[in-house]
């Protein structure tokens, strides 16, 4: 017997939990870059905390928290260029905030207003996918289309560990491999799919290694290390943009909150597990690292925190003063144009 091919799955961490860097893998980044990471994480976290309290007050509907996953979300979003297309799942507030998606629109969306998902012109963001994993082949298709059009753009698609079990994952990645589509597959392995642990999703050791079977590279990164995520996504998107094909990036992270506000995670996982991961959350190490460099002070954090809170407050105010949707819109937005039947229905219903 001979060996045809062997695979290796690499793991990338740049800054560890104690805030120590590994200089051999540290990309060329400056103080301003680290401040941007820090501030984007704080802003995303502020958006998220306010969403959770608005839900408790009955001012928005069910919401999926990103707490613990901010580095995976903001690090990846900041590594992509503004022209790249983003295909988010329902748990991507951090990605959207990092990309500058109007926060008031996100609050409207979570309050049940579809108009909140109508991304502003020029912001290359698809509507978030609530059905799990269905966005994966869409990204492959969009990436392929961009390649055919000769655009130097990348499609980045976000999904979870649960999403990696879907047929859509297999089919989307396989196509991307065959077509060399400029795609970055971003799996946030947050260890849980509602009550199903990662170990029950796949018998494989990592999700990253699945890329090997599709003929392209997969890498696992410390998803709580914003620099590792940034570096991996930057390299993968540069590669895709220059015709090198897709990459699968598994961000190894943790969902610190319940699955959504309609869930109670204490039913199926231990408090000790959550505490262990809390110590590894992304902001702690970034703070320690920046402090050592002389880029972080308590005053700096407090001042930015205040700014973030004021920004978010203003966005909520804007969201809540926006007018209610009109029932006629239900019929008007179903087709490109109103059908004859709908026109009749509109009249009959007096909308």
């Amino acid at each position, binding site marked *: 017997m001979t060996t045809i091919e062997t695979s290796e799955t690499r793991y990338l961490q740049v800054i560890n939990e104690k805030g120590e860097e590994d200089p051999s893998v540290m990309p060329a980044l400056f103080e301003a870059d680290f401040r941007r990471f820090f501030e984007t994480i704080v802003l995303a976290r502020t958006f998220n905390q306010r969403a959770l309290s608005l839900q408790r007050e009955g001012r928005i509907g069910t919401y999926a928290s990103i707490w613990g996953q901010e580095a995976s979300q903001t690090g990846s979003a900041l590594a992509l260029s503004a022209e790249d297309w983003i295909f988010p799942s329902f748990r991507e507030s951090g990605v959207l905030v990092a990309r500058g998606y109007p926060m008031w629109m996100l609050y409207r969306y979570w309050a049940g207003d*579809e108009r909140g998902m109508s991304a502003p012109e020029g912001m290359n963001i698809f509507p978030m996918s609530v059905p799990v994993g269905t966005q994966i082949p869409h990204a492959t298709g969009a990436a392929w289309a961009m390649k055919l059009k000769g655009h130097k753009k990348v499609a980045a698609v976000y999904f979870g560990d649960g999403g990696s079990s879907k047929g859509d994952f297999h089919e989307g990645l396989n196509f991307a491999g065959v077509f060399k589509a400029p795609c970055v597959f971003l799996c946030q392995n947050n260890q849980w799919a509602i009550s199903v642990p990662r170990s029950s999703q796949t018998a494989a050791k990592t999700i990253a290694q699945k890329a090997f079977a599709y003929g392209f590279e997969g890498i696992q990164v410390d998803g709580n290390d914003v620099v590792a995520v940034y570096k991996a996504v930057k390299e993968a998107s540069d590669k895709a943009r220059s015709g090198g094909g897709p990459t699968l990036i598994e961000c190894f992270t943790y969902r610190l909150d319940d699955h959504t506000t309609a869930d109670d995670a204490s039913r199926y996982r231990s408090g000790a597990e959550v505490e262990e991961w809390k110590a590894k959350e992304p902001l702690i190490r970034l703070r320690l690292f920046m402090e050592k460099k002389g880029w972080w002070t308590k005053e700096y954090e407090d001042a930015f925190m205040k700014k973030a809170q004021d920004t978010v407050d203003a966005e909520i105010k804007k969201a809540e003063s926006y007018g*209610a949707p009109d029932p006629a819109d239900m019929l008007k937005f179903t087709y490109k144009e109103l059908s004859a039947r709908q026109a009749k229905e509109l009249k009959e219903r007096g909308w």
Partner: protein
Amino acid sequence: MPWTKIYASRTEFEKALKDSPGLRGITYKEAIREATAQLLSADKSVFVIGEGVDDSGGVFGTTKGLQEEFGKDRVMDSPLAENGITGVCVGAAAAGMKPILVHMRTDFLPISLDQIVNHAAKWHYMFGGLLNIPLVIRSIIGRGWGSAAQHSQSLQAMFMNIPGLRVIMPATPYDAKGLLIAAVKDGNPVIMIEHRWLYDHMGHVPEEMYEVPLGKAAVRKTGKDVSIIAVSHMVHEAVQSAEALQEEGIDAEVIDLRTLKPLDTGTIVESVRKTGRLIVADTGWKECGAGAEVMAKVAEAGITLKAPLVRINLPEAPTPASPVLEKAYYPGKDDIIEAAKKTTGHGKR
């Protein structure tokens, strides 16, 4: 029969229970759980699979505690893969098992349509009767809570169109239990569609195992002026509207279809022949919907009608997430009342 009666509220039911102490009352979701537990006990080939069935919430309580009782080999979650799970169940059913597959949302059945439509529904025919697929697929219509376009759909009509499938939509706890048991024993693939708004509805349910035959509608109220034929949650709206109509001198008959495929043509035709007026209240969309099929049966029977037929359905649009829009979107008892007054010549014309 005490179990054919539908109570408007839990208080009304509890009052009735006091008058008949021999009868037991449980909720719709408890009835499903009880039926499942009894099926698992009675038949070693039955197993339950689906996303969240082992979760402590137990799919809104319908599978709660079953894994502890029957073990991980008989009640199990799976990797997140709807088409895959359905295919696995079709294969297991072909190999002699009787899977009860739970899809938390009816919206996720379309992910498995190939397995349901091209395989489960066809194999008995294609293999000359060699195989049958005793697979029951439970799924749930959502409503409220921002369930919206992809977590709320009433897709019964899609399945009614496919030879080889059966479609059941129980509206009461008694029927939920009896139809589920009959479905598992039926030997054909059965799509059972539940409605989340029915889960806490209470009714009389015998403790022992019993079957409600597939293909039999139930007359919930007899009447002579207009037939209101309803499906699932709309049965409850219809019963309430009939009570209100009675006070205005309109004697409505209310029929709960219970099974949509095969339809109980006899009961439908008999009722409309008597009343000469028909309203169909369905939880889904209008075009090619369950109501259209009911009306076709009436037309085919050549009944002379006293007024045009009326269908009560959702608007021609996906379900909105906004509470404001949802309120406008869903029809209810007032729409039925208005339609009944119109067809019988009462009220505004």
